[in-house]
């Protein structure tokens, strides 16, 4: 994986709000096709960092490039190269499956013909032919997650940001979703994921853990466990985050 290009590069990336340093000089890279876990306690600065990388917020200082574009000057180009999915907001419940897919296709700049082709293709691939004209609100949460993830990939982004993607679903559905993540990463799209499930951190290629705005550790789950003499990522996380000064 070492010879693949970087999709995210940051150097001393910092964001202040007044006197408060939300993100404090973080430096890291994410490679093409990598599953990158971005962990931290509530209030550690994850959301602020993620908003910068999605082109929604300017940093105060430092450098960052996402999909080759600069976060200060090319944030609109970044938005076209990324996908985003969150547990909190995913799809319009009072639109049908097909309407949602076409809507997001339109937002991501696909032509009408492409929207139609892509939505047909996606509905077939997800095995949702019978549900295509049903309201999304009537579908189980696990299906909604799969549709939501797939719509975030419609425009073939270089990287997809998953913000707490799998809360509240049963263990089989969680694993089906994980299979989709593996498959997507295998196709060369990078996955940038935040989660409070520490077992989800175990399947990431690399994991960073933020404490009080800084990156306190960054490595493969195996090496982090060796370094902290821990048998799980949960234990690594607790050792690092327990002494955080900031509490949300």
């Amino acid at each position, binding site marked *: 994986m070492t010879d693949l290009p970087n999709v995210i590069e940051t150097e001393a990336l910092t964001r202040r709000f007044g006197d408060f340093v939300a993100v404090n000089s973080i430096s890291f890279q994410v490679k093409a096709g990598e599953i990158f876990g971005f962990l931290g306690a509530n209030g550690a600065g994850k959301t602020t960092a993620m908003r910068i990388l999605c082109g929604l917020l300017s940093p105060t200082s430092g450098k960052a490039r996402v999909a080759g574009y600069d976060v200060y000057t090319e944030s609109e180009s970044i938005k076209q190269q990324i996908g985003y999915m969150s547990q909190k907001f995913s799809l319009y419940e009072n639109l049908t499956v097909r309407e949602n897919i076409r809507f997001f296709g339109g937002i991501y700049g696909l032509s009408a013909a492409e929207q139609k082709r892509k939505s047909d293709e996606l509905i077939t691939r997800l095995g949702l032919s019978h549900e295509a004209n049903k309201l999304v609100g009537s579908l189980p949460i696990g299906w909604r997650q799969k549709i939501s993830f797939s719509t975030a990939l419609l425009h073939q982004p270089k990287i997809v940001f998953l913000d707490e993607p799998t809360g509240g679903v049963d263990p089989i559905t969680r694993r089906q979703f994980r299979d989709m993540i593996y498959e997507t*990463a295998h196709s060369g799209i990078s996955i940038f994921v935040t989660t409070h499930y520490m077992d989800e951190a175990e399947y990431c290629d690399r994991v960073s853990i933020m404490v009080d705005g800084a990156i306190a550790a960054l490595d493969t789950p195996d090496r982090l466990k060796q370094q902290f003499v821990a048998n799980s990522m949960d234990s690594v996380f607790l050792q690092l985050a327990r002494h955080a000064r900031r509490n949300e």
Partner: protein
Amino acid sequence: MPAISVNNIIKTYDKGNILALDKVSFDVQQGELFGLIGADGAGKTTLFRLLTTLLLPDSGTAQVLGFDTVKDFWAIRKIVGYMPGKFALYQDLSIIENLEFFATVFNTTIAQNYHLIEDIYVQIAPFKDRLAGKLSGGMKQKLALCCALIHEPKVLLLDEPTTGVDPVSRKEFWDMLDRLRARGITIVVSTPYMDEALRCDRIALIQKGRILDIDTVEGILAKYPKRLYAVRSENMFRLLSDLRQYSQTDTCFAFGEYLHLSLKNGEADAPATEAYLQSRQHAQLSFKPVAPTIEDAFIELMQAQ
């Protein structure tokens, strides 16, 4: 007398079209820390709302410390403390005003029961004049627990208190529950996090309104019927595809850093499976027996349904 007794409860919504609870029965003993483990839509919140007398069952009965949830609802409301899944305190009252309000409603004072909330309250006391609506998630959770405890309930019902909370705060919260249990309070807590089952005396695994099993964690794991293997290699995606296609594979799911694999003929298939993976040239292959986790057991019970 059990602290809680639920007998064959059926509850539907939408004129019978949605079956929320399907003949659910279980007991919780006094002083027990009992976990309801299940995903969104399993029926956990419906159960809490029945036990707190806020909903009526279609059929079946439930008792809390011997009081019937329909007939004796007034007695039950005095002895249970309830922390709903959604933050339900007054957002435009401060921390201390919320707490005083709940104490007054139950005809008591903060001073009288301060010993019960002290460990938790000291953590939010520096912000006691801040409006509840302006608190962080972790602080709201602590305030809600204080308000649920201020009338010295015998039974504490906590609906997904740790959802969306980071692992450090989750651990602290469960430590608090241990201390409350040590005071003799019966606690029923629901959670979608399977690993939290390990903190409970007994658990009920719930899926789509039905109880899949009720037991101690050890009891549930002891009943797990299959031989499981933990498998990993350098390329986990290819490993998963290869195992899913393999003729002797029974189930194969990603579990943390490993795949958990069960085989159609159990141990008898293991040597051939390992040879098959070697023939597929997986680098750094690791193949070893592994004990099931509570999630393996949950998946097995879901598939058996």
